[in-house]
């Protein structure tokens, strides 16, 4: 009886400090800090005020607000845009399902996404690209998230099914976007018309999904006892890591086209994806190899002693521990891959940044508005990069490798 009381007493977290106490502890804890606070507050407020008043009053956001569809899907034919809508809705559906199943950060993301949709759908402005159909579509996405949430709450829906669903989305998306030759319903849309955020996400998602397995394979290859395998992996990794991404993009985009015969020409977007994948795989391989080295030899010996095969030891003993150890590094790698996709601009692919540049240069009046356009683009990149970093931190906490525990 007494014991449990003491335990409850001990477990109880300290009360969060009141606002006054927080201010006193953090801003006025010493004379020096007090002076700094008094001196800095006006500066901070002045900066904030200038930024906000510039954004609201002097900045001209025409070059951003006039072209929402260009920024999101590029030149994708407007009468086929429902295909992008279907993909977006299924992403929202699975977001909702994952929220219902796992909660946590997914809850915040779902709610934020739903909020963005509703707010955009109800924006009290006249815009040719925000017609009734578009508003209805955006509103229905909120419903999709909610439907997903209730599906996710159903215990019978297995977690593995949800994960497989997530992995299937990019594949289905590519098929749906590219279309089928001579099809009435989904005619072929050449990749030269894909653009904007759509291409940025496809390159990033494709790069991550393809480079990770390749990177794991290369890491094992480099540690292999077979000299051919380890030699090849080592050369591959070191060559790719030795040249900048720009060079690899040029290699795949121009040199490859010069060497390959005309009949076996590879699509420009696929070439870019190959370059990004190969580049990211080399870096992932080194990250994963670091993780593999951190797994104590005793673990492998213990697995062997239990009679596990080589494959089982690798899949169930070595890899989980190795990946867990290098999760932060891999997450960082993926975030930088996401940002590196902007380099495809130099091989003529209109990704999110490329569309921004096209818009700036399409109209003499917009040359003056490039600050606004670039700030908008930077903000969007920051939001998604930050989301990725937040997700990786939550994942770390969930796996028990966080610093703040």
């Amino acid at each position: 009886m007494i014991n449990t009381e003491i335990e409850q007493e001990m477990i109880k977290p300290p009360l969060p400090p009141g606002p006054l106490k927080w201010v006193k502890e953090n801003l006025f804890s010493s004379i020096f800090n007090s002076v700094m606070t008094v001196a800095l507050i006006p500066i901070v407020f002045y900066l904030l005020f200038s930024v906000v008043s510039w954004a609201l009053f002097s900045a001209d956001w025409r070059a951003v607000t006039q072209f929402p569809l260009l920024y999101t899907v590029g030149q994708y034919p407007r009468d086929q845009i429902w295909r992008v809508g279907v993909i977006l809705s299924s992403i929202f559906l699975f977001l909702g399902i994952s929220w219902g199943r796992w909660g946590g950060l997914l809850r915040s993301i779902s709610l934020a996404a739903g909020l963005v949709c509703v707010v955009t759908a109800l924006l009290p402005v006249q815009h040719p690209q925000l017609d009734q159909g578009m508003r209805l579509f955006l509103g229905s996405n909120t419903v999709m998230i909610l439907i997903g949430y209730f599906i996710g709450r159903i215990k019978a829906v297995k977690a593995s099914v949800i994960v497989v669903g997530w992995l299937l989305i990019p594949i289905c998306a590519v098929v749906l976007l590219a279309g089928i030759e001579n099809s009435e319903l989904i005619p072929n849309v050449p990749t030269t018309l894909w653009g904007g955020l759509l291409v940025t996400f496809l390159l990033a998602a494709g790069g991550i999904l393809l480079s990770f397995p390749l990177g794991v394979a290369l890491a094992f290859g480099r540690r292999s006892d077979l000299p051919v395998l380890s030699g090849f992996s080592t050369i591959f990794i070191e060559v790719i890591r030795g040249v900048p991404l720009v060079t690899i993009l040029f290699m795949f985009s121009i040199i490859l086209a010069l060497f390959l015969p005309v009949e076996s020409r590879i699509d420009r977007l696929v070439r870019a994806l190959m370059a990004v994948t190969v580049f990211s795989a080399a870096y992932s391989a080194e990250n994963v190899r670091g993780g593999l080295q951190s797994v104590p030899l005793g673990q492998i010996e213990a697995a062997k002693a239990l009679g596990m095969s080589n494959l089982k030891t690798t899949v169930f003993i070595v890899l989980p521990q190795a990946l867990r150890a290098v999760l932060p590094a891999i997450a960082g790698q993926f975030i930088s891959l996401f940002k590196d996709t902007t380099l495809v601009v130099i091989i003529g692919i209109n990704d999110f940044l490329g569309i921004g540049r096209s818009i700036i240069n399409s109209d003499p009046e917009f040359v003056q508005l490039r600050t606004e356009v670039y700030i908008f683009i930077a903000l969007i990149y920051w939001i998604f990069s930050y989301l990725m970093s937040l997700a990786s931190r939550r994942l770390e906490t969930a796996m028990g490798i966080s610093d703040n525990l």
Partner: protein
Amino acid sequence: MYRKYFPVLAIFIVLALVLTACGSTAADEPAEVVAVEEDILNRVLDRGKVVCGGRTDLAGFGMLDADGRNEGFDIDFCRAVAAAVLGDPEAVEVVPLTASDRGPVLQTAEVDILSRNVTWTSSRDAQWGNFTNVMFYDGQGFMIRKDSGIGSTDEFDGATVCVTSGTTTEQNLSDFFRQNGMEYEAVIFEETAAVYSAYEEGRCDITTSDKSQLASVRSGFANPDDHIILDITISKEPLTPAVPHGDDTWFDIVKIVSFALINAEELGVTQANVEEMKSSDNINVLRLLGEEGDWGYTDLGLAPDALAKAISAVGNYGEIYDRYMGPNGISFTLPRGPNLNWYDGGLIYAPPIK
């Protein structure tokens, strides 16, 4: 001991051999890589569309509208070819290209036409592909601020000049100053938009680029009248659509479409009156529209009214020009100058269609 390194060594040797093999084919037999033995016209007909190397980021020449549709002077030429060959000006796929992409895509015939404000030079003609017919006479010029006190190029000595890096523009600029024994201070930017912002903010006295671009940029300034584009032209930039080497029929078709657009302006055939002109009493009009005689369509494998379709799709040369750069053009206003028809004292001239 060293034996275990042999396989690695073997890989190196094999790799080196493969690389040398690739290298030598590229170096010794450029013809195999460059000249593409392929019938482009049949490829276009099979595909049902013309693949056109263009751009999406140059006002007036190649740009996007809010719905993502490609438009511009260069793009309209591709549409004209598509209309002539396939009967549909929308049967065009525009591949956005960077400056460094232009050569390789033509050499490998990845595009059917390169219409991306390319300057026709002798080395490009020898290396890249066949240049058809000059569609736009551009040239590098200077823009100065009215209040800068500089009246003519004689007073350029010691001026600061804003310019984009790594282009022929930069090279022409330094040639010009060296030849005239003058000094200048270059303010160099990677991005075109940055050059003009810096110029407008007053960080340099002069900016230089192709005149069409200077006109376009000036029209976007807050006070266009504060800036003057000088009459002097320091380089020749004949902007010309090009086709891959090795297919004469396709080369002829693209050339003749450009001749037709120019002849149409001369003969007064416009997008609007193309149908009624088919019963004109001018024999040259009838020849152009395929109503009289054979302008070569049987040999090229086209329909008699192919050129008429091209004109009804995009209009004649003057209409295309005015659509983007005329007095009420979509992009900006640039007096036609050398791009007037030869009738009116310009350089735009084409062989007759007959």
